[in-house]
């Protein structure tokens, strides 16, 4: 009989437990605050499950190693923070181009540069989207509490397999280091997407980059029964380099469309009291916790206020934001940066003039009081 396991853990540990639950087989990483606990915990947990943990010489080597390990059939992950995430960008693009499933955790800290290593920030939203060079699309997920960190981490592994793509988990220092309860779901309670493997038999020509009718690309474990080529160059259906304009155009279209055409399936969000809300907070990660606190207090006083908490940041769920905010008179984006999601919300809604920013960029968590004060300023009532 399965027993419910309840733990009192950090967000980083919730991520680790979820990764193991999702079937993680290989992790490579390099120590960096505030993500280090993920590496430490996996050095304990992974070999217990027969998986492998490597501490590499830098973050570049870490992401390259997991890409190699993924190709051979493993579910893989690495974890880092801003400076390390910057170093990973080239190889992230390789995983996009070669369509290799992998999960990259970025526990955000203050930046740019070495920045504010032990303090919170949400400044890497646009980097996660556009950090690697060239046109591409990418999936970026986040969460505000440990139960959601668990489920969104499982989602990240599932989406990596489903779309053959890197998926970025963009947590923040507060969620990563905060301790709270986590109930580990029973085995089977959450769906797990396993690697889609080709049915092409040994000795038969296998096309690693020929999509099935449903658009998915079955894989053959690298080093196994089919010999093929993998490259970061534009390539044909065999994986061999090509600069034929038709091939280049077709591949780039495919890389973008496989994600952008599935934005509704990829979108994860939570809504609180939106049905009659005239004021709507749009937030994510730890700032959504403060926004929810304000919403609950004000609801108790009869205010028509609600929260749209985004868990999928990219592809940006513009349609969902527009629809949920269509009746709002005031939309306040609560985030800990200079307005990175704000710009997306302004583009998504019908009237960008009613979208405001409530932010904090000093390394401290934005508090309910901060949000209340900014609301008063927006309403012209002073602090």
């Amino acid at each position, binding site marked *: 009989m399965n027993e419910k396991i309840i733990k009192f853990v950090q967000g980083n540990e919730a991520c680790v437990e979820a990764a193991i639950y999702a079937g993680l087989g290989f992790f490579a990483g390099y120590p960096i605050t505030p993500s280090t606990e993920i590496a430490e915990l996996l050095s304990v947990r992974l*070999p*217990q499950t027969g998986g492998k943990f490597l501490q590499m010489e830098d973050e570049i080597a870490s992401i*390259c*190693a997991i890409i190699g*390990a993924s190709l051979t059939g493993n579910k893989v992950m690495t974890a880092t923070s801003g400076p390390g995430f910057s170093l990973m960008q080239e190889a992230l693009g390789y995983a996009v181009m070669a369509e290799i499933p992998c999960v990259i955790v970025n526990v955000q800290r203050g930046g740019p540069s070495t920045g504010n290593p032990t303090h919170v920030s949400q400044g890497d939203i646009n980097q996660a989207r556009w950090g690697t060079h060239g046109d591409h699309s990418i999936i970026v997920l986040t969460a505000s509490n440990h139960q959601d960190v668990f489920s969104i981490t499982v989602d990240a592994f599932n989406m990596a397999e489903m779309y053959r793509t890197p998926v970025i988990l963009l947590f923040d220092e507060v969620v990563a280091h905060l301790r709270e309860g986590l109930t580990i779901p029973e085995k089977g309670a959450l769906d797990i997407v396993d690697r889609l493997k080709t049915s092409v038999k040994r000795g038969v020509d296998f096309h690693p980059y020929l999509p099935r009718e449903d658009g998915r690309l079955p894989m053959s474990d690298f080093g196994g029964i089919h010999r093929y*080529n993998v490259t*970061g160059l534009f390539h044909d259906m065999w994986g061999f380099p090509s600069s034929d304009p038709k091939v280049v155009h077709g591949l780039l279209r495919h890389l973008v469309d496989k994600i952008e055409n599935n934005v509704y399936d990829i979108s994860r969000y939570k809504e609180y009291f939106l049905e009659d809300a005239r004021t709507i907070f749009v937030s994510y990660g730890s700032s959504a916790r403060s926004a929810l606190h304000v919403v609950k207090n004000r609801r108790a006083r009869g205010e028509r206020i609600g929260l749209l908490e985004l868990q999928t940041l990219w592809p940006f769920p513009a349609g969902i934001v527009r629809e949920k905010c269509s009746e709002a008179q005031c939309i306040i984006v609560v985030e800990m940066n200079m307005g990175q999601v704000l710009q997306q919300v302004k583009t998504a809604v019908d009237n960008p003039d009613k979208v405001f920013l409530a932010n904090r960029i000093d390394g401290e968590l934005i508090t309910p009081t901060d949000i209340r004060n900014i609301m008063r300023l927006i309403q012209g009532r002073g602090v």
Partner: protein
Amino acid sequence: MAIKDYIRERFFPQMWCPGCGHGIILNGLIKAVEELGLNKNDIVMVSGIGCSARISGYLDFHTMHTLHGRALAFATGIKMSRPELNVLVPMGDGDALAIGGNHFIHAARRNIDMTAIVMNNRVYGMTGGQYSPLSGYGTLATTAPYTNIDHPFDVVDLAVAVGATFVARSTTYHIRQLTDLIKKAITHKGFSVVEILSQCPTYYGRKNKEGNAYEMMELMKQTTTPVGSEAKKQNHDLIETGVFVETDKPEYCTEYDKIIERAKKDN
């Protein structure tokens, strides 16, 4: 099997310049694999970026053409996942030791069982003849028009210092030795380094007036000597070839299997 059984014939003739040494290395490598009787399905080749990196596309193994300098890091993930495979990592001198220097020293330090082949032509060929860390003081390159003031290092010395357990050097002139050394390196359990001096008549040779491919190979013959030879004692400028180190040290994948055993027992 015949040579053509190991190559992807449809990509030939290859893209290297006439006279380039890399085709000789390709030939020696195929001979080594053939003489060892290895199954093509048991060989993974991971390459980086540059002229050298194109070698993987020509071979009918499991092949991965990765990022500049990072081949060993990708290969580490593959080898750790599938330790039973023979992992070969051909790299250029800039690829292995400039941009990839960090990965080179740490892969060697771990003693992970793979074969690093440094195809050293002392130049960045693909981008048009810029100096590499191994070009040498006083040489000319398209980015060293007033002569190069960068000092090189010795690949063999470096590999030995950072813990590679098999270290050897040959040249494209010494095709039989080159083949034998690759065979030994593949067979060795641990991190193996084979430096192969290769000629780039198009850029290095032309800039430094070393002549055509034939003359550059003749120069390799004249400037090298077997390791430990009398000639070296007489003339310190000679470059030694042969096996420099062949030792046993716990291999990384094997050691990790013991970690898994320990972790499962403790749990």
